[in-house]
């Protein structure tokens, strides 16, 4: 390309952008950026988001160009990473962890013509949408299996951070377990990390030493699975991803976050200009939450019960949070027959009645 034609093209491009034609011409791919809180190789949460990114590439091929930044710490670093993606020309950016919330809000303000999507948060703006999956539905199924299968009547839960998403999980699992086994007790350990295999392994070991034989994790690595396997008589559930390499035991089932359909839908909307800022909360019914195969380590009766619960939740006839339901301190959360609204669940920062552990302050 000689200098003259270069100048011409540049001028033409500027002109096109100037008169407000679609910013991306047919031959220019839509650039899409992702930031992940862990490494893509965590085999859990971030891995699953990256599967969603790959699904976009598969579906749209040359029409998109995706990139990602992994292991981004929650906090100021996230703002830097997001700004970097926006400056690199990405027109749609997915921030895939709760702790990226304020960083995403700030960066979205600075780049009004870039569209942002924040996972598991609740702050919206004109160019910032939020999306989340109803993980608690999966937890209810895990609680049912756990409540039926525990011999020590102790279920352990490795919490990450005390945020609504995690409280929903703990409470849903406990309520479902108590329904099938009134003697069940919930042990909670907060790891204060999303991803730290050694610490997660220690947390699992502490719970197992305390007599837990059903272990649920809200952290992203497979380290607790490995610890449970070592202990021998403990069952676990895959978190975010299937974690099937630990099947049939200790991993007896899993909750899988399937982001691909949502990501593909949103990319399509950006392309045809129908993208709107909105809050999406998908569950088992929309396929955003999938229940991984229940292995043969689970008795057939329990498996059937769990699958029925899954169908009932998907069909809307059962909601894991249905009154009468009290908070841990005995005050009323839901009246008899009342079903928790999404708003109530998004603000859930307490244990339900019956859980003896104290919530972190």
């Amino acid at each position, binding site marked *: 390309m000689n200098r003259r034609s270069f100048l011409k093209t540049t001028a033409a491009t500027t002109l096109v952008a100037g008169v407000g034609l679609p910013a991306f011409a047919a031959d220019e791919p839509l650039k899409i950026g992702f930031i992940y809180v862990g490494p893509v190789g965590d085999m859990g949460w971030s891995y699953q988001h990256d599967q969603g990114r790959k699904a976009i590439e598969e579906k749209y091929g040359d029409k998109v160009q995706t990139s990602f930044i992994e292991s981004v710490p929650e906090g100021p670093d996230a703002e830097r990473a997001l700004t970097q993606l926006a400056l690199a020309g990405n027109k749609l950016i997915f921030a895939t962890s709760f702790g990226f919330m304020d960083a995403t809000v700030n960066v979205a303000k600075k780049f009004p013509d870039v569209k942002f999507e924040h996972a598991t948060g609740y702050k919206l703006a004109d160019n910032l949408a939020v999306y989340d999956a109803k993980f608690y539905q999966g937890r209810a199924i895990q609680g049912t299996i756990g409540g039926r299968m525990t011999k020590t009547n102790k279920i352990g839960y490795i919490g990450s951070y005390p945020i609504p998403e995690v409280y929903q999980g703990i409470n849903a699992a406990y309520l479902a377990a108590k329904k099938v086994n009134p003697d069940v007790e919930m042990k909670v350990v907060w790891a204060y990390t999303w991803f730290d295999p050694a610490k997660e392994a220690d947390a699992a070991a502490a719970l197992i030493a305390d007599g837990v034989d059903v272990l649920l994790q809200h952290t992203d690595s497979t380290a607790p699975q490995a610890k449970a396997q070592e202990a021998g008589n403990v069952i676990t559930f895959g978190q975010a991803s299937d974690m099937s390499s630990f099947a049939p035991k200790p991993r007896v089932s899993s909750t899988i976050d399937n982001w691909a359909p949502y990501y593909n839908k949103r990319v399509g909307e950006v392309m045809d200009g129908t993208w709107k800022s909105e809050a999406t909360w998908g569950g088992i019914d929309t396929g955003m939450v999938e229940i991984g195969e229940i292995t043969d380590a689970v008795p057939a009766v329990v498996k059937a019960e769990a699958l029925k619960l899954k169908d009932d939740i998907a069909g809307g006839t059962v909601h894991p949070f249905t009154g009468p339901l009290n908070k841990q301190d005995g005050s009323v959360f839901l009246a008899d027959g009342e079903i928790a609204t999404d708003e109530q669940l998004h603000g859930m920062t307490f244990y339900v009645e019956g859980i003896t552990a104290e919530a*972190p302050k």
Partner: protein
Amino acid sequence: MSIGGIDIVTLAAMLMAASTPVLLAATGELVAEKSGVLNLGVEGMMIMGAVAGFAAAVATGSPVLGFVAGALAGALMATLFAFLTQIFLSNQVATGLALTLFGLGLSALIGKGYEGVRPPPTAKLDFGPLADIPVIGPIFFSHDWIVYASVLLVAVVWFVLRYTRAGLILRAVGESHDAAHALGYRVVAVRFAALGFGGAMAGLGGAYLSLVRVPQWTEGMTAGAGWIALAIVVFASWRPWRVLLGAYMFGGITALQLQLQAAGYAIPVHILSMAPYVITIVVLVILSALHRHGVQAAPASLGKSFHASS
């Protein structure tokens, strides 16, 4: 035996296993720093040890070979550091930080194929009837051989540094490399050896993480253990037995914190998490107050570059 819902025996057994990676790395770093080189690349060497050890153990089916490979990988990283800082006289702090970043990246690349793979198990040593002694049995006779080796290595390092000619030379190089050079000791060679040992120990610690403690490979799995090892060396004021104490205390508080939670105590997690660091700061303040009039605890030539011409 249990106090306030905390099983002391389980806690003690857990803390020994939980502290081993940091103990190994800190002991190695102590030797390197005693020779007068500050290697901030512990984290990078550990994670390389973790991935190399894991890969070797999976490929050969032998955890022992895995540990050997982990130590070699750590030593190799340390040799790279030694070349840069001892031959090319690069800045030790910057090179150490670079080594950490390099190790984290390279290990992630090498480890891509090993995610979700399970390593061959490392058996616990069988002490026969000893393991059945109440209290003492589960605490002292229920571990794998690396746990015992790590304590033994602390003793060896202590003995060598204190009672042997080699240890004396190493310390001389660390205290005053010019004087040691004038006496005819080969400063650079001694430091290469000390760094290599430090790297091997860090690699061993990393391999323990991926082969025993977690056990699996995940990117970034050391999660700061190398930095804790560096802090412990300072906390221990460069003395081997205090390194053991410091490592077990760090490991102990981590294990205790999780056990307290499992037992249902509402303790402020953040306070316990920062406790080891607070204690380190307090110890440093006390040490510097004690040494006001004379000997500093750190080797006098720590972090200084040496060239025979100077």
